[in-house]
């Protein structure tokens, strides 16, 4: 699996590359700037690009712009955005059209190597990975007559994993329950929240996200 990395801190860039290589990724590009990343993405057509949201020269939104451009120019390439802070607004912006092949994680998540590698693979395969902080912030969000409170604790756990982009199998593995049980929970959650059930696992991420945001 081919991956391109854009991260201006050498320490992190090399650490990431080493981590991914050890996990059998083929790191095709190690970039310092957004422009470099874009040209490498064009040249090497990686399966996934990992982008730091703050990149030179201004360290404002170059990384995000590069991520959005890859999303629109090369929809088949997954984009995983890393940041020192995660913002609901940015998640909404990144997932504005679809949650397919997109991820948005805190940089801290790198150190949980197994989880991180799984997230990279998921995004590369067209799935999604949304940071748990975003999901928990949105779920914890105050809303009038909150239907979330109708969910059982287990359903809440499933909702969080679902919103973060986990597949049913992933949820089953995380919670150590059967796939069938997961499917039951999912349809129960959709029922309680009044959401129409959607087919794909990525599409339901967006549906849940928009539901939580409103």
């Amino acid at each position, binding site marked *: 699996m081919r991956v391109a990395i854009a991260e201006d*801190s050498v*320490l*992190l860039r090399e*650490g*990431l590359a*080493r*981590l991914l290589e*050890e996990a059998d990724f083929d790191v095709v590009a190690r970039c310092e700037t957004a422009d470099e990343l874009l040209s490498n993405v064009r040249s090497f057509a990686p399966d996934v690009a990992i982008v730091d*949201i*703050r990149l030179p020269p201004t*360290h*404002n*939104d170059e990384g*995000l712009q590069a991520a959005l451009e890859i999303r629109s120019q090369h929809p088949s390439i997954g984009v995983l955005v890393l940041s*020192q*802070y995660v*913002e*609901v*607004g*940015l998640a*909404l*912006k990144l997932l504005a059209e679809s949650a397919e092949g997109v991820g948005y994680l805190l*940089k*801290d998540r*790198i*150190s*949980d*190597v197994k989880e991180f590698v799984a997230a990279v693979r998921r995004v590369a395969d067209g799935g999604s990975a949304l940071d748990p902080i975003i999901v928990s*912030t*949105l779920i914890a*969000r*105050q*809303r*009038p007559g909150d239907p979330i409170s109708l969910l059982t604790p287990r359903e809440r756990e499933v909702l969080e994993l679902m919103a973060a982009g986990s597949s049913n199998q992933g949820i089953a593995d995380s919670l150590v329950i059967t796939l069938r049980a997961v499917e039951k929970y999912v349809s129960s959650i959709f029922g309680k929240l009044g959401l129409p059930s959607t087919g794909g696992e990525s599409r339901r991420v967006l549906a849940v996200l928009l539901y939580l*945001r409103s």
Partner: protein
Amino acid sequence: MPVWGTSSCRASPQVRIGEASQLPKHESTICLVDCDFQYEFAHDRDRISLNHRSISTKRPRIAGVFHVPTVGIQVAEEYRWGGRPEKGVSTAVTAAAPSVAEPRDAHRAPHSLVVGSIVLAGCAAAVAGFALSLEGEYGRAPHVHASLVAWITLSYVLCGLIAWQRRPESGFGPLMVAAGFAPALSRLSEANSEPLQTIGEGLLLLPPVLFLHVFLAYPSGRLDRRPDRFVVAAGYTIVFGFDLVRLSLAGAGQDAAATMALSAQRASIAVLALVALGALVSRRRSSGRPFRPSRELLVACFALALVGLGVGIVMTAVDAPGTYVIRWLAFGLVGTAPVLLLIGHLRAGLARSAVGDFFVDLRSDPEPSELRDALARALRDPSLALVYWLPEFGTYADLNGQAVALPGPGEGRAVTQIDRDGTHVAALLHDPSAEDEPKLLDAVTAAAGIALENGRLHADLRARLEELRGSRARIVDAAQKERQRLERNLHDGAQQRLVALSLELSLIEQKLEGNPGARAQLDQARREIAASLDELREIARGIYPAVVTGHGLAVALEQLSARASVPVRLAVEVGGRLPEPIEVAGYYVVSESLTNVGKYSQASSATIEVSQTNGVLLVEVTDDGVGGADTERGTGLRGLADRVEALGGRLRVWSPKGGGTRVRAEIPCE
């Protein structure tokens, strides 16, 4: 403005201005300013009164008594009362009205009888000049020459009379009248009677010298410059000196010599005409500025007339062909000049009445903003700009305290600086043509005195306010920049390193497959790092909302409303990004308001509305809580107000008890 008695002096011809003893001692120098220069001043032991003499105009006349230091008029000359300088009360006459500084009764307009006689005499002279000129040998078309003589006579006499009446204090009118009679007198040389002929011969060359005198004495009637005086004195000397020589030679029967003397006399006067032309041009040069168009025309007319006179005299002397054409031209120009002179005089009269109006304007104590308009009217220059000198800022500024650079040379604008009590107060930026009437400028600027001072204080205040606002904005900006720098240092430094360290530990952990004890320790260390990163993240967010700078207000507000303690409805209608300080201020308004909602309001919901209309960013946070927010409580709202006001905006808080709280910030964003 301490003006005594002005309100009544329009109503009554005899106005008691005020008790001299009522005036404070240190203000004992009183200045009588007569805006139309047509008042008499009377003074008895302890009263000042003003005798209103209504002369040629029906306009209401305004006069005032001003304390000199207050009005700031420079004392130009001492006003001598009955030949004796009066210390104290009536010693001052001002630069604003220098023509008042003449002895009393010296300049009355000519009596109507005198005027009538002069008109009659002028007509008679014109007719006589016409008739006598027909007698002379003036080549072809003698009636043209005769008509020109009559035209010159009439134009000088009549225009001179009008000037005399309008400006009795000036000697210019009488001078013109005298010049008008000269041509007719010189024509007596064609008379049949011997004595008249002798007189005519004697005065033959007087007219050109008189015209020369008139031209050089314009507009005051006086010869102010030494070269002018020299030229005129030389002219009269030549006329009368050579006359004596000629008459004595003719008496001795030496006609040839007498004719030669006449030629020499003519040549001398021709040279003198050219010298006078030089004097006229040099005066024009030394003034260093263009005259008004009418004045330009006049000077050109003078110059051409002088050249024509010179050339005509020389050609007559050598009996050149075509002399008569040159002479017609010269005579025509000479006769046109008085009309132009009269126009100039009437304009000056207009200017004086403008000063009168200006006094009326000043009397109503104009707002500083109205002063410029009043000055523009008085100087008849709509483009006039008034700027004030702010010594502490070392610059000129407009009424709003905005610094103004004076126009440099070649920008087509003139600058008149206005001083009071030896200190610089203001400057007028005006059309250069206003400098053509220096007395008008002086009078207007002097009269504007106290009003200018008010305007200057106003401008000074505005400049200070502006500076204060600027410094507040700079302080807020500097603090913000510093916080931004700190946040970035944290982000690029400690946070990155901790993430890298945590990653390193993970990689080591993976290699310790067979050592669960060490793995558990490493895992613990990673948890510690994760906790540190969480803390650092919160600290960094508290220091500076980097997301606002990076991604804009709309994105940043999502997180704020998601994390709020009550359900929040968020409506953002802002197209695109705004300047960073404005977005950051808007962010803080929302963040602080939401904090207050959580802490004090007991609200069940809140609304955030952000919109941009007419160049103003509107940020409004409303809750349905208990209200009664104390705007002075803590530093939160006060700090917010500082931040918003530093950007030229304003923050308002409505918080009636039991009625919820509404915080509304309006920040200009264009």
